[in-house]
């Protein structure tokens, strides 16, 4: 049968010319639960898109004003909930900057180890989910299996698999268990092996590469203008990593590379996360070697640290100190400060305003994926409908952080 438009000229064919409106609603398998994209399509091509977030706005900033400085830790955990330790560490560092406390070395190494484990968990989830959304279910299951191993360590250390609330102002909730170093070494070997297997499945797959390569391209200059940070920015070739540019904790004493991408497309963002996983593994192993096996984990500043329980139950000073810290909160000096660390998605900043009491006056989180999701519209306009899925997946928007 001959083609239907064989004899017609281009402009004689009547085609519907109104764009179609499509709603990729807030409940969608690939929208990570909480983003609504209202699209105007012309055929398969996206003409305009309106990215609507806020479906997981949980009032983090308002809730922080209703507790004490230490009661913010559980809320902070649930911001970037795939790498909660990084948020804990970021917030603890921010308050410590205001109180001008320096935690002991052992605590700094410990925070680095747990933080990098959280980062590994974040990258495993992101890459696994990206693969799953493109149809590759098996690498997702393998990466979740690897993530379970990482969570085993975190469960051993903090008691919880996901939302640990393990950071404290001036230290950590508990000291490292004796099993930490052994578990880290064994787990990292197993995790990296699983990552390699997953890569072997994906990176030679023609379909996978076609869907990621050259899609969602953004240049370095555009990314900086959009305030992107983290793996998405480094995929576009801009060498900015808070751990390298403004080292905190002991990041200047460990050896690790900062992988950079070339094209700024989805594939680069995917590969960068896998490369960063390996660098995190390097950091953890070095930190395990350097961390002392004994010594204090918490600083002993009585303004912020709870006294040992034996003192609380036997001495009156201990009781009063405990009471004041719990009921009124640690009295952070009045003023404001902005402290930033490298979160799973980029520069995670906390801007704290204190009025000198134990209750925060304002806790503002600078969410890295808020800025990144702001650039999503630019990436998908002009692309095809099915390109939204890998592009959005590669940005790693975490609803808790984006909508705080």
């Amino acid at each position, binding site marked *: 049968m001959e083609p239907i438009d064989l004899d017609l000229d281009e402009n004689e064919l009547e085609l519907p010319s109104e764009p179609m409106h499509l709603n990729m609603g807030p409940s969608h398998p690939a929208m990570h639960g909480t983003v609504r994209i209202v699209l105007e399509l012309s055929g398969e091509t996206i003409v305009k898109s309106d990215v*609507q*977030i*806020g479906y997981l*706005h949980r*009032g983090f*900033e*308002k*809730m922080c*004003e*209703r507790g004490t400085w230490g009661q913010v830790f559980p809320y902070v955990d649930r911001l970037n909930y795939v790498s909660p330790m990084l948020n804990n560490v970021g917030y603890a560092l921010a308050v410590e*900057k*205001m109180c*001008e406390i320096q935690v002991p070395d052992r605590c700094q190494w410990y925070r680095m180890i747990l933080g990098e484990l959280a980062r590994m968990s974040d990258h495993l989830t992101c890459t696994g989910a990206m693969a799953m959304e493109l149809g590759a279910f098996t690498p997702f299951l393998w990466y979740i299996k690897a993530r379970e191993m990482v969570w085993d360590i975190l469960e051993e250390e903090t008691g919880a698999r996901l939302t640990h609330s393990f950071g404290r102002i001036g230290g950590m909730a508990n000291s490292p268990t004796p099993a930490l170093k052994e578990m880290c070494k064994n787990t990292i070997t197993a995790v990296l092996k699983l990552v390699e297997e997953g890569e072997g499945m994906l990176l030679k797959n023609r379909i996978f590469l076609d869907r990621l390569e050259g899609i969602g391209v953004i240049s370095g200059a555009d990314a*900086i*203008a*959009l*305030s*992107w*940070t983290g793996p998405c920015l480094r995929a576009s070739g*801009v060498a*900015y990593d808070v751990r390298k*540019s*403004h080292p905190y904790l002991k990041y200047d004493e460990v050896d690790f590379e900062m992988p950079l991408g070339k094209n700024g497309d989805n594939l680069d963002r995917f590969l960068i996360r896998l490369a960063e996983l390996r660098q995190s593994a390097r950091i953890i192993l070095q930190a395990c070697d350097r961390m002392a096996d004994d010594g204090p984990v918490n600083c002993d500043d009585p303004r912020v640290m709870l006294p040992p329980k034996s003192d609380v139950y036997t001495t009156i000073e201990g009781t009063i100190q405990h009471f004041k810290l719990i*009921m*009124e909160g640690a009295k952070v000096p009045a*003023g*404001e*400060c*902005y402290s*930033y660390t490298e979160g799973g998605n980029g*520069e995670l*900043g906390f*801007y704290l*305003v204190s*009025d000198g*009491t*134990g*209750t925060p*006056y*304002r806790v*503002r989180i*600078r969410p890295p994926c*808020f*800025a990144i*999701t*702001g*650039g999503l519209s630019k990436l998908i306009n002009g692309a095809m409908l099915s390109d939204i899925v890998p592009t959005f997946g590669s940005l790693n928007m975490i609803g808790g952080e984006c*909508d*705080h």
Partner: protein
Amino acid sequence: MSERVLEVLKAKFGDAVLRTHSQFGDDTAIVDPKSWKAVCRFLRDDPQMSFDMFTDLCGVDFPDRNPRIEVVLHLYSTQRRHRVRLKCAVGDEDMGGCEVDSICDLWVGASWFERETYDLVGVTFKGHPDLRRILMYPEFEGHPLLKDYPADRTQPLVPYRTEAEAGLPLGKLAPFRDDEGMPFPHRVHNAREFGDS
């Protein structure tokens, strides 16, 4: 953070820079809202400053002050690796005159942050291409992060089910009765009263 930035700003803008400080190592300049955009443009374009990355924009409510809202902007330079914080104060007691120029055309990434500040704090950004609510829904009234918005005042979009409809008790016990709970030192933001605030 670099104090040179503050010196250059004071030299160039004189009276528009009302105050500067470097508390906790963060260099801060409080500027006049009318020169907000001019200062930002200078910081972005001047080769010595080159603040090419916009980091954060938010608003803080100080109801005891006049003007009450402080708009806080953090900037970063990827080349020179220095940061600065700019603040300006707008808005009177009833949130009148609470507006400042938008800096979206200087840094594209500021767009969503300005929408968020408008949504949660109520600052209007003049010249913003698309100033609407971003985290709250359009039917929401009020600006939640203001200190006089009670934290637990909900504005449900979907009417809640009644117990008759549900066939079982739905009201959950409030965590604290009126005479329980911690005494917060700030003005009480809840609808419930915690004794004398």
